[in-house]
């Protein structure tokens, strides 16, 4: 039996309310007023309007919060021997089921990209793992591309299922919801939504139309090798980054950037009680790799940009076999000085290596 279900535009509120009833915290895109309108994934409550626009900030905070407590520490004096200290460490272990509604395929693909280093490396990250297990991702397929996104260059597209549990596609009166994973299928089968029936074909048509509307694909398959070749080309990287402000907008908005910092924060000013925090960090900041001695392996923004681009298009692919970029384009849209990752990667692909330069001059 197909698990495809139909969700009418008018039934979204009831559907979400039902999910809340079953114990999910539901995150939806919500429009926030401001000097620039932003769309933010925030907890949904009955009656709140939702937006179906692509969110300004990727929903990675659901698996990697902006900051989280790894553990609390507290020091005590042992009553039997007051001179002797003892120590308690408490790790946070409570994670609630969360449903992400109306993320985009690029957001969902971000989760798949994060899963590899966090879950499939030498060590499994327990905090990420629990949040990820508790997360159900319902993605809205895109009806078209936009001026800054390029998912189809990175091996995905407007209806890619990677990272989603359910894909929803907008048709005339509502959405067709298609279960991708077992988790998604079960959720749909357990729901009271009507079967999609013939509407599924309408959804397929809508998805095909979306693919056809995209701009021509650029071939990035040689990027890993080319980036490795021009790794030492200081002039290339300096040229590409001279306008960079070294802020963290690109990395914090990105669904696939996962660099973090770990710091201790005293809660009593005397280090008897405190927390160890993990918080978002950005590889574009100088302090990121600066050692206590003052030595810094990436002292200039050129080297930091090289690391960021290489990680996404060369070293992550080398380790994990896929780009760590889902092509969402947020870094392009929101870079204060309009740096365009697409342009840098394409330039790198077409850059001449030192050897080629030498050949030409000789």
């Amino acid at each position, binding site marked *: 039996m197909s698990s495809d279900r139909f969700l009418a535009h008018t039934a979204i509120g009831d559907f979400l309310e039902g999910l809340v009833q079953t114990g999910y915290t539901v995150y939806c895109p919500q429009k*926030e*007023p*401001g*000097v*620039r*309108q*932003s769309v*933010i994934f*925030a907890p949904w409550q009955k009656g709140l309007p939702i937006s179906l*626009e*692509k969110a*300004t*900030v990727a929903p990675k905070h659901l698996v990697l*919060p*902006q*900051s989280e407590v790894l553990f609390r520490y507290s020091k005590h004096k042992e009553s039997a021997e007051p001179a002797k200290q003892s120590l308690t460490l408490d790790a946070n272990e409570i994670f609630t089921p969360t449903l992400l509604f109306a993320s985009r395929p690029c957001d969902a693909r971000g989760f798949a990209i994060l899963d590899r280093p966090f879950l499939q490396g030498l060590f499994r990250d327990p905090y990420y793992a629990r949040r990820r297990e508790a997360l159900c991702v319902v993605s809205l397929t895109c009806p*078209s*591309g*936009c*001026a*800054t996104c390029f998912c189809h260059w990175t091996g995905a597209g407007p209806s890619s299922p990677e990272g989603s549990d359910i894909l929803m596609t907008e048709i005339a009166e509502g959405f067709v919801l298609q279960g991708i994973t077992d988790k998604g299928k079960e959720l749909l089968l357990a729901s009271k939504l009507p079967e999609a029936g013939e509407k599924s074909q309408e959804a397929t048509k809508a998805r095909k139309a979306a693919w056809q*509307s995209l*701009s021509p694909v650029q071939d990035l398959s040689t990027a890993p090798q080319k980036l490795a070749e021009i790794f030492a080309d200081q002039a290339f990287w300096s040229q590409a980054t*001279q*306008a960079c*402000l*070294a*802020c*963290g*907008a690109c*990395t*914090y*908005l990105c669904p696939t950037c996962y660099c973090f*910092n770990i*710091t201790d*924060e005293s809660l009593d000013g005397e280090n008897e009680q405190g*927390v160890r*925090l993990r*918080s*978002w960090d*950005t590889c574009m*900041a*100088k*302090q990121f790799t600066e050692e206590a001695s003052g030595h810094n392996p990436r002292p200039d923004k050129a080297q930091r940009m090289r690391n960021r681009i290489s990680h996404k298009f060369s070293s992550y692919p080398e380790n994990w076999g896929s780009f760590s970029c889902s092509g969402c384009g*947020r870094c*392009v849209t*929101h870079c*204060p*000085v*309009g*740096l*365009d990752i697409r*342009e840098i990667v394409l330039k790198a692909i077409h850059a001449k290596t030192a050897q080629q330069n030498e050949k030409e001059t000789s």
Partner: protein
Amino acid sequence: MPALANNELRIVGFLCNWCSYGGADTAGVARASQPTDLRIIRVPCSGRVDPLFVLKALLNGADGVLVSGCHPRDCHYGTGNFYARRRLEVLKRFLPILGIDPARFSYTWVSASEGQRWQKVVSRFTEEIHALGPAPRFEAVEPLAKACSWTQESKGPVSVISPELLEQLKKAIADKLPELDCVLGWQEGRDLLHSVPLFIRSEDDLTKLRCDATCHNNLVRYLPDLKGQKVGIIVRSCEARSVVQLLQEGLISREELVVFALPCQGLLDLPRLEEALGRYQRLEDLTLTETTLRLRVDGQERVFQTADFRQSRCEQCPGELPAIADQSFGDFSGQTASQTLPPELAFLDSLNLQERMGFWRACMERCILCHACRNSCPMCVCRDQCIAESREPHWQSAEASVKEKFFFQIIHALHLAGRCTGCGECQANCPVGLPIFALRAHLNRIVSELFDGYQAGCDPKAVPPLLTYSQEEAHIHERSWE
């Protein structure tokens, strides 16, 4: 005194070691009764009290903060309290925009011999704080998600630089280029509507130059990093003020700088324009006149009135170009001063204290601490040494709580007191559209009120008001403790 047992509040006192700390001691020796709410922190001088000390205390649970130093002219170090007076008065007037009752903060002067005066000050201040009750906690206030319109009735046109003028400018730059390391300008970015900074190092780079109303980046941001190089820069009124401010502070060197000035009638507010355009794939054509913007987007013609999409900061432009240009191009007579209140600030003015705190609380929930505001600010010159990220001293926790985010915004704003030239880049570059320019605009308003209409970056010879003092302040008056 009212019986304070069981309902003590938390009041923090920063007391100068040379006077008030002794004054408190004198009061104690004389067995003058004093309320016990005050927690005293001894400082070497009231001039040592960074306004951020006060705000950190207020954000972290203090119900009141009192700073007490030596009487003016009695400073142990000569002038510390003169500087303190200016800073602390600015701080006191800054608090309301954050939603903090200014009555929760006071500063005064008590000498070591004035035990009685100390008793009066501390008793009075404690009474006042008790009358206010416990301070609302920022992290506990109800977020106020008030929808508000930021658009402002616009009068002016936007800048269009004629092809002849652009050629003239290019020619002048080409002539100068051999003696310069680079010239800062703008070029077309990802599409015709978006411009990005251009570093001109060759004639080839120069062909990309673009200087119209889409060019919003304040290029002055790059100047401190280029110290030691000879740099040319294209400025309009707002960039020129930033240049002047950095020169006033000695952060860049005039000898290393060649300034090419252009007239400006106003810039386009791209985020609002993008919102009006909606999602598009291809921008095929753009024609910009002073009054109309014509775009062809995904095969469709779209026409906008530029007046509807003029940046609100342009409505506050002082107009006149500060005397800084080495070469000027075009006609500057169209630049008129306009002094309306920024819409963000007018909106905050319309709220009460509680609403303001709730408003900022809601804003901070979506701040991601990307620091685009700070890093695009031409006046934020500490770069990689920002105290927001330092561990020693440990000013801020890495916790991404609304309180810590708000404190970061306060650090940025307060470090711009008397320095902000109003370019609005902080706000323009915020990915989530936080109206943080309001904090700076309010500070600019305070500085203007206190220091005879001073505006940052208008006069290369002026000393910024918080870097100097007068023995008698015309607009700062000592409060009474009677």
